[in-house]
Structures are given as C-alpha cells and as structure tokens.
C-alpha cells in the first residue's frame, strides 16, 4: 500500500490554505496511508482540519524560519523527513511557494515532478490538461520515491472524513546556508468586496478592454450584480493595469464561480486553466474566432465597451 503525503500550505496569517484539504480528500480516495506535513506558524492548529480530512499523522513545526526564508528551509526539512519516512507520493498545491520547495526537493531526491495536475487516476499516474484544456494527458510517474505532483487548486472538492491526526513535532534544524532569500515584508493588495476564490459571480477583463480606465465598467457591473468580484488576465496584470491579486490563470488564482463573465478575453491557455471549471461561462469579445467562445455557454460577439454599460443598466433595472 502506498504512503501518500500532502504538503499543507499555510497562508501569511498562519491559516491553512483550503486547497490542502481538497488534495487530502483525493489522496484518501487512492487508498493507502495518508499523512500531512505543515511547516511554519499555524502548523499545530492546522493538524485539526488536516486530521478531519483524512491525514492520520501530521508532521508539524511552528518555527518561523519556514516563512522567513524562501524555499530552502522547507525543502531541507522535507528532505530529511522523506528520507526517514519514505513516502511513495508527495502532493503539493500548485502555488508559488510550493513550486520553489518542490523543485529544490526533487533536485535533492532525484524525484520526478509533475506540475499543473488536475487529477490523479491512481498513485503513480497524474493527469494534466493541455491545449487550453481541450486535451487530457495521463502521465506515468517513474523514478525514485517520492514521486512529486503539484495539484491545481479546486481540482477536487474538500470533504471531511471525520478522522483525527496524531501530531508529530518536527525540529527546525535548518543550516545557515539555507537561510538566504529572506522575506522582509508582505504587501497585500486585496480588493474590497467578495474574494475572487469565493465569489459566486466573477466579472473578468482582458486586453480587449483597451485601456485600464475601462476596468471601472467591470467594477460597476460587479456592483450592480452584487456579491461579484472583478478578475483579470495575466496580460493586463503584467501591463500594470490592475494589481496582481486580481490575476486568474495558471500563474494566479484558480476560480470556480457559478457564473464567469469573460470580457475582452481571447482565451489563452494561461487564463483558461484558471477558470474553465466555472459552472457557467459568458464571453463578450469582438473577435468571433476567439478561443474563449469554445468554452462559453453564452457568447456575445460585440464591443465590450458598449455591451457592459448596457448590461449594468439592464441588471439595475431588473433588480428594481
């Protein structure tokens, strides 16, 4: 029976990222032993929900060295842990921090690393999607244990199993040469209103909006709908139109709202993988050939700068 480990990521406030529970839920379904590792302030508290979602043991360390320095301390301690306990499969969330840690760890252990994983058919196969999500590829993971897979957020639903975990405290024996890239400040650019990851409706904009000032039209529409958040593509975030915190896609957030409005978004793979699991998709784009229309439940071929203000008025009048 395989031993499967889940790397549980803690956010900047020490809270457990929900995606860890999604991954645990899937790991449980693969059979075998499921355990978790949580490193950094908040690790002990995280053991509760990790146990409720199927981890029988949580290797935890509260030391701030894991949040103070990028990648190296976690890779170092994980390396020691995997040598001692020999998990067969190690699952990370596909996040900024985990990519840094997983790459380092794999270079130490010689393990294979599979990124952007959307499903795990079994404990030695990872599934990903290519060509804008139109094609599913099964990848067989070979080479030395632990095989490493980085799982996309929201790939699975988190469901508790009602269990509880034994916490094993791990020592933070991190050498000085692994304390190099130091995080000295965290800047949060969260927008007002509902969070992107939780909003039932997302109004998202791309290059087709032509000018950063036109994002105001999306905010007005989101305001009229109510309980809606505004998102953006990497292209407009990189161009400096809106903050990084609004980015949806491969690099950025993965979202799964009831309704996703893609406005002036062509549908690059980078963006699509972050929103294609939305319940319903509406697209507004001038170009009838835009790939986004292949995903859309409703597509309007037209000028977003005309359709969006009209829609805001329409929504306001219908809500009375």
């Amino acid at each position: 029976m395989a031993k499967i480990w889940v790397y549980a990521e803690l956010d900047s406030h020490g809270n457990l990222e929900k995606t860890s529970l999604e991954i645990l839920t899937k790991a449980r379904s693969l059979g075998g032993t499921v355990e978790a590792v949580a490193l950094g302030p908040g690790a002990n508290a995280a053991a509760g929900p990790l146990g409720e979602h199927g981890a029988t043991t949580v290797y935890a360390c509260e030391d701030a060295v894991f949040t103070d320095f990028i990648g190296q301390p976690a890779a170092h301690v994980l390396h020691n842990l995997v040598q001692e306990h020999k998990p067969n499969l190690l699952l990370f969330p596909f996040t900024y921090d985990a990519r840094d840690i997983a790459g380092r760890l794999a270079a130490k252990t010689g393990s294979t690393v599979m990124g952007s994983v959307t499903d795990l058919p079994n404990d030695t196969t990872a599934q990903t999607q290519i060509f804008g999500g139109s094609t599913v590829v099964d990848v067989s993971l070979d080479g030395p244990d632990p095989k490493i897979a980085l799982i996309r957020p929201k790939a699975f639903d988190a469901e508790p199993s009602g269990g509880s975990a034994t916490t094993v405290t791990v020592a933070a024996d991190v050498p000085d040469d692994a304390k190099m890239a130091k995080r000295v400040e965290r800047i949060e650019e969260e927008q007002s209103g509902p969070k992107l990851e939780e909003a039932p409706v997302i109004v998202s904009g791309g290059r087709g909006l032509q000018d950063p000032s036109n994002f105001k039209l999306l905010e007005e529409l989101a305001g009229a709908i109510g309980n809606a958040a505004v998102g953006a593509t990497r292209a407009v975030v990189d161009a400096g139109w809106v903050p990084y915190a609004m980015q949806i896609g491969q690099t950025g957030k993965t979202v799964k709202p009831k309704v996703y409005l893609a406005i002036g978004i062509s549908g690059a793979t980078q963006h699509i993988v972050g929103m294609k699991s939305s319940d319903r998709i509406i697209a507004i784009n001038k170009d009838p050939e835009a790939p986004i229309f292949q995903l859309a439940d409703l597509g309007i071929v037209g000028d977003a700068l005309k359709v969006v203000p009209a829609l805001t008025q329409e929504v306001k009048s219908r809500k009375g």
Partner: protein
Amino acid sequence: MNVTVCVKQIPDPNQNYELVDGRLKRDVAQSVLDPGDEFGVETALKLTEASGGEVTVVSMGPAKAMEAVRRALSMGAAKGILVTDDALAGADALATATVLAAAIKRNPFDLVICGVESTDGYTGVVPSMLAELLGVPQATFVKHLELDGDTLKIQRQTTRGYDVVTCPLPAVMTVTAGVNEPRYPTFKGIMQAKSKPVEELSLGDLGLSGDDAKATQSVAGVNPAPARGAGEIVADDGSGAAKIADFLKEAKVI
C-alpha cells in the same frame, strides 16, 4: 557582474498543434524564443549595462534552438551555449535542470535568470531545481528588482500582492512578464549576433551521460477533455445585454 540567462525555444504559442505518440510535433511547428524569456534577457542586459560584466545565454533543445540563442544575442547578450543531444528527446524538468546547471557552471556567474515558467510546459520548477543544483538561493516570481552591492532586493509576486525579499548573490532569479519592456533587436544587433561566439555541446561535452538526463515520467494516455455543451454564440445586435441579463436571471445570480 556576469549574468547567465536560460532561454527556451518553443513552438509559436499562436499556432495550433497536435500530439504524436505523446509528444508535441515540434518539427512542423514554427518555433520562437519563448516570449517569457525575453524579460529575462532584458533584465540581464540592464544589470550588465549598469554595472559591467557580460551576459551569457544558455539553452537546451534540438539544433535549431540555436535560433533562440541568436535572438537573445541580437538583443545584446555576449555569447551563447546550446546543449543538444539525441539522448535529451523527451527530457523532463529534472533532466533539463541537470543539463542547464552543468552548462551554466562552465562560466563564472553572479546571477542566473530564468522566466517564471515556459509558455509551452508551464511547470515552473526548473529554476528552483537549478538553484539547488548550483548550490545558491532563489529569488523567484520577480516583478521588480533593485541591486544593492551583492544583494538583490526584489518584489516577489504572491496571490495576494507581493513580498519584499532580499537575496545575496550568487543566486537564481525568475522574472515575470511585468518586470520590464524587452527591447527589439536592432538591425545592427542582428548583424553582430551572427559573429558572436556560440558553443554547441553534447551531453558528453558536459561530462554527463544519457542516464543523467533520463526522463522519470512518460505519457501514458492522451484523450480529448469532456466537452462542455455547445453554447449559444450570437452577434450583438443591441440585444446582447438583455440576453446576458436573462442568462444571469436563469442562473439565479440576480
């Protein structure tokens, strides 16, 4: 300072492709320097223009990937290395990092710069593997940087904003597409690039064997994704807004 930039030649992301036996048909594809790598080249050029030193470009791929190396040279890099070897077909992230690290070590470096992720593979773990193999720290997802003596001060992108991170050199750094505006090669730059020194190396030249670069994963199946039901696509004749409002009403979100 001496800066080494890792670049990749990728199939033009603006074309459509197919898989044959689980691998992208690269020979028929029009290939380009990964647009994400141009930001790394630009960053390296800016740093050496400000503080001296030279930029080396390193790549791995088929022989024609030298085009991508030349493109970076035409932007202003001083010299190039391409590792090309039949044994590298199907190489995965760790094999790639192993080869790149061996090639990078041939020249003294203060900084290695990579894109955050390739525009065709998107795995984004090669840079941290490189950092580990080179025994240096990593400054990743950089959207802004300053160099203060031997220390980088960077803004590292996060899902909620960014972190300010300090990192001593030598280091591996990954830059996002927002970090700068890459220059276009000038005519003069293109002409000069033709006579700049480039090396084409095999695994053996790097002291590696096929076993060092053996892939540890393989494609086991390729299938079409479950299709979403065909949607209703209509040209806006003035009623587009009303159609969307009807849809939102039906979805019970207004």
